[in-house]
């Protein structure tokens, strides 16, 4: 599954846990166990409200999410297949398995490993393509926006360097003082 958007983890960060533990311990030490328990309850109540609120925001589309399969699952399977191969090797060394059975089982496991690796490759390629696409899209937007804003100042009018009167872009002389206007190219260069 792929989608743009987000950090789904949302797992309480260490500092959040500390923020919870410190007041609870403080309350236990200063006011006794009952108060400590009620502080813990309050912290979890707030934690619940916060998480449900974020959940509702995500459902409503008010919060961006990014969810993308990472290849940890594939790594799990790869590691697992590697161990299976090692284990098979061990069984062969200890003479528990015939050579022909060993060959066949090893082939089966290797085929599975290849399939997983190719899935992994595809996943990584998709990820790379997605990143490039995202980058290009963002970059395009920025450059489009940049060129638009630039053109808004350069395409509509040109300022006379001596009397600051706005003249048409294609004008060669100022319409007020009659002085010669600099060429469009040099104007652009100055702006940049």
């Amino acid at each position: 599954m792929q989608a743009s958007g987000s950090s789904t983890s949302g797992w309480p960060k260490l500092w959040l846990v500390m923020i919870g533990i410190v007041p609870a311990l403080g309350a236990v030490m200063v006011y006794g166990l009952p108060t400590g328990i009620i502080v813990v309850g309050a912290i979890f109540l707030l934690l619940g409200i916060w998480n449900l609120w974020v959940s509702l925001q995500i459902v409503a589309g008010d919060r961006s999410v990014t969810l993308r399969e990472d290849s940890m699952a594939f790594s799990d399977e790869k590691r697992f297949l590697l161990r299976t191969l090692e284990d098979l090797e061990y069984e062969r060394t200890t003479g528990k398995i015939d050579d022909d059975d060993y060959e066949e089982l090893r082939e089966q496991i290797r085929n599975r490993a290849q399939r997983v690796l190719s899935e992994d490759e595809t996943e990584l390629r998709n990820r790379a393509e997605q990143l490039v696409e995202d980058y290009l899209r963002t970059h395009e937007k920025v450059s489009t926006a940049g060129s638009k804003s630039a053109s808004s100042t350069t395409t509509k009018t040109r300022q006379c360097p001596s009397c600051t009167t706005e003249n048409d872009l294609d004008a060669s002389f100022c319409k007020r003082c009659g002085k010669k206007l600099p060429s469009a190219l040099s104007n652009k260069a100055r702006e940049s």
Partner: protein
Amino acid sequence: MWHTIPALGTGLLTASLVASGFTFFLAALASSRPRLLAAARRAAYGTAAWTTAAVAILAYGFVTHDFRLSYVSRYSDRSMSVGYLISALWGGQDGSLLWWMFLLAAYSAVCVAWLRNRYLALQPYVIAALMGTVAFFGLVTLVAADPFTLNLAGPPVDGQGLNPLLQNINMVIHPPALYLGFVGCTIPYAFAMAALVSGRLDNEWLIAIRKWMLVAWLFLTLGNVLGMIWAYVELGWGGYWGWDPVENASLFPWITATAYIHSAMVQERRPMFKLWNISLVSITFFLTIFGTFLTRSGVIASVHAFAESDLGIYFLYFLGLLISTTIGLIVWRWSPLRSNTSIESVVSREAVFFSLNWVLIGTTTFVLVATTLPVLSNALVGRTITVGPEFYNRWMTPIGLVILAIMGATPLFGWRKTNAHAVRRGFIFPATIAVLGLLLHLVFGPSLGLPPFVSVTTEGDLEPLPGVLQYLGKIVPVVTVTLATFNVAVIVQEFWRGAKAQRSVRKTHLLSALFHAVSRARRRYGGYIAHLGLVLVFVGFLGQTWNASGQASLVPGETFSIENYVLRYERSRVERDRAKDMYIADLSVTDRTGAYRGTVSPAKYVYRSHRDQPTSEVDVLPSVRDDLYVVLGSLSLESHRAAIQVYVNPLVSFIWIGVIIVVLGTGICLWPHASMSRQRKTQRPDDGNGERKAALDVERKDAHAS
């Protein structure tokens, strides 16, 4: 704020129920909708947080003695210490359901956090299955067993207190451990459902739940054993397992989970046993719910059960829904679940695991039918038939021996088929050692008081045993000792072979090679260590065969002899603390040669909150060979006469040592590989480079392995 506590508790419980329902729907609709999945994950955290807050409110009620709450007034009083006040959270029906819901929600949150961006195709259904179960427990708690219900007649001056039998340190830790085991079985089931719904029935879900199932199995083991210890030291009948329906209920999922852990190994290596594995995971989860039904419905009488209530019907409906859904999904996915490969040879590991599956499922069915016999017989033949411990012991002994034999032989078989030479090579050493064990038992057993043959007596109204079983009953000790020796020899041989293989590669000394062998294949060797522990547990169970017991009525100065022990009654005394009066008899123990062995002080405790229910506080003088187990039956304050029951229970210590070794072995299986933890540290979830490196790493190792 104090006035609002009960309402706040019910409010939080309701909020948790609504949140879990909300999460369930979000997750159920989240397939291919990442936004909904992200929202469901957050909502799952929220549900767990609110459930925790509800438990905190109830704990606050207990520690502040808020007797406005009916539950608090029924299960605590002002004399109880903080530890027991907290344990009262799960001491009664209502609180234990909330506790279950809390553990499940917390487990779910940890699972969701662990999942992160992994298994995205399975995740929606996993979360939906978990939250559906949380919602069920929330609904039952709220509708039928709200622990925040107020006392209608107003708060009493003091509470009724916790049942004295539950005021034991084991009872503080046994239920949470067992619940963690029960609740832990929900996660593998959620993955199995996700695999069925999504159609991803390959090894993906199997790999995902490997550690989850082991953790659940570990907690089930610990929960069961802590329950045994509690029964041993608190109930005072001399034993640790009475085949009580509630004890059996916690044993069912343990057996099927054990079957799954072994059965999964086959699917991991070969495209077989898919149906078995899905079924075993599902049955394990169903049995946890069925156990809860047995414990709470009151349909079967038990010393451990909660009071009779109408809660059972909810569990029955839920169980019906679960079973029909699972069967429906299995039928739907029948084609991919069917195995394309068959077992090629009966002399193969697949065949042994296949037989193990059937033996363990058969055992579960046997104990299940025997446990529910009162209800079944009532429904079928119109009269209630119950069976006692004798019946179970008689039939479970041969079953146990078959399991012990399979356990020993399995490591000696290879995958697909094992040739005659390999079988011979594998069996020679263990068989020789087993014969040696047999001879040693025949020669030295009688002089140690552990004879190899025993007489079989028919107790109660049981029919006499058929010929073969009668004979088997007589030779149980020697068969068990032989099989146990065989098992130990197989394990030693496996370690030796592993170390030898490593030594030939690494050119290092034996201990270092052994260490490398274990650290490279933790699951294999952790499993062997767990097997070793189980062998010791079996030997411990065998000890029952040589039990001796006696009773005496003594005045101070008199002695009583049993087996190798001489007990001298020294004095009686009465002590008091905040909660109870303690009537204690002190006896000094020597052996037949006169050597001092220790002092035992069995007692009767009379809790002021439960004066009509005195408890026997057993005292045990343990040793490796046997436990001297002394119960005080009665004590006269005028004449100081004490009636005592004395049991000599051989080899009980083997059970506890065995369990410690099982835990150690499971710990080794669970221990993450160093390379993996290093990799995880350097590999951030979104770090493509790290993954790429990992992929290359594996490819490289793969090449090396081949």
